[in-house]
């Protein structure tokens, strides 16, 4: 459903390649976890897929269509969703507003309640709250997840979704990914997230070092990533 062909990204001064000739094929309904050391190009790769940054070379094919030159919103409307590593805050938009925008419809209280329950939040406490810096990092991260759930997309991309949700169980988070019934790409270092992947993609210096199930890539992680983070950190 998603193919990336010879995808590269050079920073603007042209002498540093962040992503180098990456070729990947993502299949329908599978969970992929992209991992690797800091600076290996993980976040850049998913930003390229979503169109947040343009590639300097290569192609992105989504459902048979070349989307390399499409804008972010055009990709979103084809069925792609993206959860940010650092959730964005707004002056004036409420949680309810952003969930309605995400789902492209006016939801009633029960529908919004269902969405927020899935990320462990109570609708009556949160729907009217402004989506601003007064919410904690963990609350913002969960609302970010709820936005993706609201969209019911074919392809969901999560950039380090576990950061800041320590008070919520990892099991709840991994259950969300397992129940998505869509193609899921997660950038993560967390063992418990790597364990649920159908396929783990290990990046190093912008290149794909190894692809396989967690137990297959595990021997390469200790040397490539240094210390691997446990589920409860």
């Amino acid at each position: 459903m998603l193919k990336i062909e010879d995808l590269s990204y050079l920073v603007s001064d042209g002498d540093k390649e962040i992503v180098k000739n990456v070729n990947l094929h993502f299949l329908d309904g599978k969970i992929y976890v992209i991992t690797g050391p800091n600076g290996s190009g993980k976040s850049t790769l998913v930003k390229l897929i979503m169109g947040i940054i343009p590639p300097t070379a290569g192609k992105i094919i989504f459902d048979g269509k070349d989307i390399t030159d499409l804008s972010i919103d055009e990709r979103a409307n084809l069925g792609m969703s993206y959860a940010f590593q650092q959730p964005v805050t707004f002056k004036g938009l409420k949680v309810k507003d952003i969930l309605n925008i995400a789902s492209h419809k006016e939801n009633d209280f029960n529908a919004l309640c269902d969405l927020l329950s899935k990320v462990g939040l109570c609708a009556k406490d949160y729907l009217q709250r402004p989506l601003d810096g007064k919410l904690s990092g963990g609350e913002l991260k969960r609302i970010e997840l709820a936005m993706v759930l609201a969209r019911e997309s074919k392809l969901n991309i999560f950039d380090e979704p576990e950061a800041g949700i320590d008070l919520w169980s990892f099991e709840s988070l991994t259950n969300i990914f397992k129940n998505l019934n869509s193609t899921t790409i997660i950038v993560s270092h967390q063992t418990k997230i790597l364990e649920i992947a159908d396929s783990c993609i290990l990046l190093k210096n912008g290149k794909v070092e190894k692809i396989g199930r967690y137990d297959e890539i595990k021997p390469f992680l200790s040397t490539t990533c240094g210390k691997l983070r446990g589920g409860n950190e």
Partner: protein
Amino acid sequence: MNRIDKSLLEKISALHNISLGAVNIRKNGEVVKRENSAEIEIVPKKNKSGIDVFIKPNLKNKAVHIPVIITEGGIDDLVFNDFFVGENAFVTIVAGCGIHNTSSDTSRHNGIHSFHLEKGAHVRYIERHIGEGNGKGGKILNPTTKIFQKENSTLEIETLQLGGVTSSARKTVATLGKGAFLRIQENILTENDNTATTDFKVTLNGENSKVEVVSRSVAKGKSVQKFQSNLVGKASCFGRVECDGILLDEARIVSVPMIDAVSKDASLTHEASIGKIAGDELVKLMTLGLNEKEAEDVIIKGFLLG
């Protein structure tokens, strides 16, 4: 009343569902409707244009509407409205002015208001300003507000100006007694060659008095906005001014803060930030399927009305 009159009134007055206590509607410099109630008396001034509004003590949850509409060019309206709010009364006052000008002559409304709040009185004052009509004539609004708050009174002012007003100059001067609280929320959108200036001076005379001024500005086109605030703390008091501005196109916003802690026990702060729409806000909304223009509109609408 014709369709334009009704539309203007709807836009500046239909803002709440509190039961109406009294009403005074002014059109093109003349009073076209006035109704008193047993608790709210509107008395026309004898020597100049305008009204005195007397609100009885302890009156609860009633509203006073005093909208002004101008539907012709060449009108220069000057009006003095004074509100006397009795002890422990709680009322909503809806003012504001709508100008629909299709002519080449400028129309102007200068509303000079004063608020005298007795002990424990609580007033919510809603002021909406709009300009409409594609005539070349200016649509000018210059509101002046003088505020005198006695012990433990509360005044909440919500000002909204959503484009179309070619020029506005707001001046607000307030004096706060012991335990009094003043909150001002001002949201202004300018476009094209509009200019809008705001000038606040609040003197906190009483112990434990408090003022909060929140200004949100969006400037489009070649419009210019200027925000000036001056808080003077003469007692143990608290004052905070927050000024946020979003710039688009070639517009300009100037913020001039002044805080003067005359008393060493005064606590006064000013925060201001002006800049274009944050790129990450646009990108976030685009990942939700909005194009750049739709994302910009959502951000501006939320910023001004959220």
